[in-house]
């Protein structure tokens, strides 16, 4: 008990202990220690720390709080492991690719086949994937989730064939590796099946690098997250510390009044931030040697009919289509949601950035894939970077809005205190 009391006394600010510590010890010796005294001292220490805060303490405390919060978040987040296989598709032994786009088109067809419902169902059942989810969700949803979140097939090099990677992310490394192997096997099998169905020779598929066993979780490391948390905490501490300093110097505004305004601003900011729906942007990068042909393709893909067809196909803004009509939604999608921008012109090649913004990230990615597919189908283009899966919403920033609310509230508090003083002085 005495040890606990000593620790509780150590919680008091050093300056306070220097002044009252000896007296407090003498009191404890005379009165003895009782059960509630440790709690009483700890509570008193916290109160004393709060009432004797200074700029440095606020910054240090906020930094530590940021590190702790980020640490807890980083530990609580499920870790994802990504297994990767590298493959190469080249011309059949008997011939050469007659069309420059043939390997890419063949790979797209193969990809569609492997990612079909039947193929993925077989992989899920054979590898016993998504055990928990299968008890709660229909298989259709799990397959869609698998396509959107877990599997990624990315072309690395399209010259003279197609070198591509197959990635699969899962909660444990062995599962990620097994699923990647299953997808690679399915691609090889479907390549043969597709060729025999078309009466054509199968493409040569070479596995350059087999499915890896990931040793580390994907994404930013915990140290990085903790570091970012510390920096965010420090930034918040600097803001609060500055406000504290202002209130200490300017006696016309009380800290409690200021804290009240800041808290109200934060509450308002949190409310606003959660009322605003998320917006995600998925982006893909294309490259073409024929900019004129690409420009024609852009015009065709972004025509009223084409955009309206895509809205129906992807079931976008269904409520708005019912209420406002397809024409209005088509205009909105074309003008506000789809972006096709020239990113760079280099060595006769022009790169285009294609992006789509939508409240659901998987739909954003799906529609970007759809747009890329349309461009690839209408112009000789190479996909440098396929449609990305947006991880965080581009809008709203749910940390910034409450923070802005705190700052705005505090400034309003300062203004209110100043106006009140002016009124009292002139009265």
């Amino acid at each position, binding site marked *: 008990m005495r040890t606990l009391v000593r620790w509780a006394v150590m919680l008091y600010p050093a300056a306070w202990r220097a002044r009252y510590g000896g007296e407090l*010890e003498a009191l404890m010796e005379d009165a003895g220690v009782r059960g509630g005294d440790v709690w009483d001292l700890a509570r008193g220490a916290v109160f004393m720390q709060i009432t004797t805060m200074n700029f440095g303490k606020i910054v240090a405390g906020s930094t530590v709080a940021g590190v702790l919060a980020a640490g807890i978040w980083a530990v609580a987040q499920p870790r994802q492991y990504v297994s990767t296989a590298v493959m190469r598709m080249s011309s059949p032994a008997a011939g050469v690719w007659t069309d420059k786009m043939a390997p890419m088109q063949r790979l797209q067809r193969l990809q569609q086949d492997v990612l079909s419902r039947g193929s993925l169902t077989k992989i899920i059942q054979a590898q016993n994937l998504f055990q928990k989810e299968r008890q709660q969700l229909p298989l259709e949803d799990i397959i869609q989730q698998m396509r959107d979140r877990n599997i990624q097939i990315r072309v690395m090099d399209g010259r003279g064939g197609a070198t591509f990677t197959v990635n699969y992310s899962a909660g444990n490394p062995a599962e990620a590796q097994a699923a990647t192997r299953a997808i690679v096997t399915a691609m090889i099998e479907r390549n043969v099946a597709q060729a025999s169905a078309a009466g054509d020779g199968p493409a040569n598929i070479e596995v350059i690098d087999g499915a890896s066993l990931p040793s580390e979780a994907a994404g930013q490391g915990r140290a990085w997250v903790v570091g970012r948390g510390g920096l965010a905490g420090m930034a918040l501490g600097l803001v609060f510390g500055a406000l504290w300093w202002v209130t200490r110097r300017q006696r016309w505004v009380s800290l409690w009044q200021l804290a009240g305004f800041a808290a109200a601003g934060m509450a308002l900011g949190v409310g606003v931030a959660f009322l605003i729906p998320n917006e995600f942007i998925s982006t893909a990068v294309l490259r073409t040697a024929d900019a004129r042909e690409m420009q024609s393709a852009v015009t065709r893909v972004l025509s009223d009919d084409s955009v309206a067809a895509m809205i129906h196909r992807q079931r976008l803004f269904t409520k708005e289509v019912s209420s406002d009509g397809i024409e209005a939604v088509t205009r909105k999608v074309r003008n506000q949601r789809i972006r096709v921008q020239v990113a760079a012109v280099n060595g006769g090649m022009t790169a285009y950035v294609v992006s789509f913004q939508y409240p659901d990230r998987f739909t954003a990615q799906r529609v970007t894939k759809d747009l890329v597919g349309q461009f690839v189908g209408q112009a000789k283009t190479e996909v440098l970077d396929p449609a990305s899966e947006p991880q965080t919403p581009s809008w709203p920033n749910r940390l910034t809005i409450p923070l802005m609310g705190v700052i705005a509230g505090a400034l309003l508090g300062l203004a209110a205190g100043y106006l009140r003083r002016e009124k009292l002085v002139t009265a």
Partner: protein
Amino acid sequence: MSDPTILVLASLAEGEKHGYAMMEDIQRFAGVRLGPGTLYGAITRLEERGWIRALESDDRRRPYAITGAGKHYLEEQMVSLDSIVRTAMRRLKPA
């Protein structure tokens, strides 16, 4: 009446006392045992406001005395409390 600052002022109104003596005195006249954190929290606030002052002492058991401002504040509080007590007692009496 359990405001520690009023209890400490009321205790010191009798004469100078150190922490333990205040704790004992308060327990005797108010039936409340102030914890060490609560007592020294109140002493800190009262000293900052100039309502009590620490007296010179070679011992760790430093005595405190109530100041003129402290007496004035205590009197104000007691007058207000007295008014409340009288009103409440009058209203409690049967008509």
